[in-house]
């Protein structure tokens, strides 16, 4: 940057700084002499960020988190995390005179007695929903483009931790108003915890400070929600962003883009303006949602009472998959083991979901082991160019989606006039069959797309121009792509299945066999990228 174009600041011209410039210069000098901040600006100021619409998803997550922090701080000034019994005497007439916890009463006061309180509550809730949703989409983007490969495996894992923390933040926050709906959510947590063998009732006992619901849980969730979880979340978020800066962002394959460079816009000024502006757009959109769309109307649910519950109860969307897993369990999965109940109807979801999430968390390490590829990868792959990974991802998404849909089994039944039994039985079937079908279909579709790309790269595209040859034969002229367009289609990595070979002691280990098996599963069906030799051969055969 020291070599600015000389025409802009001709050395012969003596520029007299204006008053404002002199002040800025002095101020900047003052700060730098005390912080050496110029080094940071030198390192980061012109850092290049590649551009693609899908890179925005992580930004949405970051910005909605900032919105959550801002609106959440506002809410803490008015909210009382107490389960002390009070008589509601606020502005909302239908609940006047009812007994409820101070938490519920203060949540109602925020909604009906504090100007802008309802707006802030709703912006906070919408932002929380968007936060988890955008993290999920961001993870899918990173997964399907292989952006988790070396050197970014650790950052994928940190991102996964952020996803779990976001869901934990969501659930703890959802429970704070102590309304009927969230109370039932806690009741379900209590029932699940009690079903854990050996320690279940003790965990519930300690969590709720005695019997459910007790008078402690809201204050404890509040501490988790505004202190412990955000502290961990911010630390993990800092690490996530720091690693992103160290690793630099991935970019999609394209002309001029290689594994060794980054092509894009500099932080100062373009990226800063785009990203900073985008923060305000996300914030503005969330405020509009909070202003116009009601979310979590606790006043219609009323205060928590263990006895009533309304039909069609739904958790917030991100907890749906866990609730769906509970709903899906067939009857009778509870057994007597040495005089103690073993609640498999609870333990199966409690074990299967962590296994599923564990596979998500450790997928980069699994794939790295299978490919044995120790190189750094900075080019985001098109999903079609990694057929098996894309198919695995589709299977995972389908599995999650079936669990998620099951959480609305009762609504599906009433909406489409089918019996709840049929819905559940279909879901039980789909949770096994769906991922397999999705896997097979996706794999075939990706291979088909790769074939089409290959065809276009080798033979060009149909120009629509029909030519009659001297012999009377009609052909349609194919036109070749230009080299820039062709590069998008041919620049991808190709792997072949691992061959099992004996090691130096002449043995083939079990791990080696497993790896070879997985490797052939991954790479047996493959479409190699076209080569220059093939193009030449094609040209030769045409003439």
């Amino acid at each position, binding site marked *: 940057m020291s070599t600015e174009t000389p025409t802009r600041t001709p050395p012969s011209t003596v520029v007299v700084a204006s008053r404002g410039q002199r002040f800025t210069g002095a101020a900047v000098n003052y700060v730098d002499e005390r912080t050496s901040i110029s080094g940071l600006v030198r390192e980061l100021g012109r850092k290049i960020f590649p551009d693609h619409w899908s890179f925005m998803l992580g930004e949405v997550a970051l910005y909605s988190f900032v919105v959550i922090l801002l609106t959440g701080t506002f809410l803490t000034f008015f909210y009382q995390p107490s389960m002390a019994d009070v008589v509601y005497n606020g502005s909302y007439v239908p609940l006047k005179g009812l007994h409820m916890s101070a938490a519920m009463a203060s949540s109602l006061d925020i909604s009906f007695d504090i100007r802008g309180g309802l707006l802030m509550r709703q912006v906070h809730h919408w932002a929380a929903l968007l936060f988890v949703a955008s993290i999920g989409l961001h993870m899918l983007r990173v997964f399907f483009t292989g952006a988790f490969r070396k050197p970014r495996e650790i950052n994928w894992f940190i991102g996964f931790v952020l996803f779990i923390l976001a869901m934990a933040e969501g659930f703890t926050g959802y429970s704070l108003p102590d309304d009927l709906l969230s109370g039932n959510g806690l009741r379900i947590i209590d029932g699940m915890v009690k079903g854990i063998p050996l320690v279940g*009732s003790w965990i519930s006992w300690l969590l709720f400070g005695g019997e459910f619901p007790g008078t402690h849980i809201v204050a404890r969730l509040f501490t988790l929600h505004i202190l412990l979880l955000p502290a961990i979340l911010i630390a993990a978020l800092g690490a996530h962003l720091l690693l992103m800066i160290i690793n630099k962002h991935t970019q999609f394959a394209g002309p001029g883009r290689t594994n060794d460079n980054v092509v894009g816009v500099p932080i100062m000024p*373009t990226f800063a303006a785009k990203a900073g502006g985008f923060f305000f757009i996300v914030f503005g959109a969330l405020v509009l949602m909070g202003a116009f769309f009601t979310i979590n109307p606790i006043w219609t649910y009323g205060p928590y009472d*263990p006895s009533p519950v309304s039909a069609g109860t739904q958790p917030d969307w991100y907890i749906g998959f866990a609730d769906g897993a509970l709903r899906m369990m067939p009857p009778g999965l509870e057994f007597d083991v040495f005089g103690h109940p073993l609640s498999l109807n609870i333990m199966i979801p409690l074990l299967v979901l962590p296994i599923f999430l564990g596979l998500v968390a450790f997928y980069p390490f699994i794939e790295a082991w299978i490919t044995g590829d120790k190189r750094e990868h900075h080019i985001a792959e098109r999903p079609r160019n990694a057929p098996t990974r894309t198919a695995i991802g589709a299977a995972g998404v389908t599995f999650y989606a079936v669990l998620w849909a099951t959480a609305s089994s009762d609504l599906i039944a009433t909406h489409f006039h089918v019996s709840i039994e049929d819905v559940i039985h279909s879901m039980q079937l789909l949770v096994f069959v769906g991922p397999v079908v999705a896997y097979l279909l996706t794999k075939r579709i990706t291979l088909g797309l790769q074939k089409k790309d290959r065809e276009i790269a080798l033979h060009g595209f149909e120009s629509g121009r029909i030519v009659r040859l001297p012999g009377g034969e009609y052909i349609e002229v194919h036109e070749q792509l230009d080299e820039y367009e062709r590069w998008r289609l041919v620049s991808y990595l190709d792997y072949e299945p691992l061959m099992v070979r004996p090691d130096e002691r002449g043995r083939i280990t079990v791990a080696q066999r497993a790896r070879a098996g997985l490797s052939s599963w991954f790479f047996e069906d493959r479409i190699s990228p076209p080569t220059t030799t093939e193009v030449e051969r094609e040209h030769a055969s045409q003439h």
Partner: protein
Amino acid sequence: MADNDTGTPHAAAGTAVQKSVPTQTVAGTAVELSDAFVNPGLPPHRARVTDTDPKKDKQAERRVYTLFYASIVGSVLAIAAYSVFPIVPGDSNSVRLNTVFLGLGIASSLLGIGIGAVYWAKNLMRGDEIVEMRHPTRGTEETRARAVEIFKLGNEESGFGRRTLIRNTLIGALIATPIPAIVLFRDLGPRSDPASALETTMWKKGTRLTRDPTGDPIKASDITLGSVFHVIPEGLNDVEDKLEQKAKAAVLLMRLKPEDLNELPERKDWSYDGIVAYSKICTHVGCPVALYEQQTHHLLCPCHQSTFDVTNHCQVIFGPAKRPLPQLPITVDAEGYMVAQSGFHEPVGPSFWERT
């Protein structure tokens, strides 16, 4: 740092591809072709209309500052809305107006900045792309050697590896230190034992069945055929731990035709003239089983759709629950009010390990 970034215009086609020296890494099973296509380099830059037409440039500039002005207006409107649309106690429409106009003001102040900044970046800031080289994430050989050396020095100067007893006792001490912190959390729950609390409810011999939530006693004659009553034990509203007791003691009272009930011989006298009482707390994870289907005599839990058959002692006929809802033996007292013959004969609600 940005090798190609000198503020000069974009790299011409073909010059943007630089190969850094490849590091010694394993490619695994990746296929590396000798006749693969060669990266053609950055395509030529296409100028935007604001780059070529000064009029359009001026127009874009006007749009940006107009948006920033709009943002200021939005902030002013938000402040105005705060007092122009106050909340009138009891008037829910005033809450709606306050929310909407405050929200509109704040949203326009935010969106004005946001859209303005993005528009500025897209149309007026430098439009071509810049190339920056990456470097391997691992430190240079020199750096790594120095790091190794530092660890060696640290080890030598402290004797961490040599003085094994010091090292091992330190590790042991560090492991032991957090344990008191875990122990300190024991008093999150009361001193007593959870199982005994979970096994008992407020119901005992002679407790009247009263309506939820008023606490009015119920006469057998009030219970018409096909009706269902949400029931709490008498005196629940006066106890200190009302919600905890209610979470265990809530009961559903239903009247069926006596011939519709398939009662076990030992429970024959637990009902009264077709009136039966069952725990309302689901045996799955504890939601209230609040939905009663009059025609089929099924109870449905709205949380996870466990379905219980009232005619067969609330056996599970569908859903994830396993155990039937516990039955409360009932009868009528001298005044004709419904009372419990005894407490529940088994713990209510979700399964827990200590339950036998």
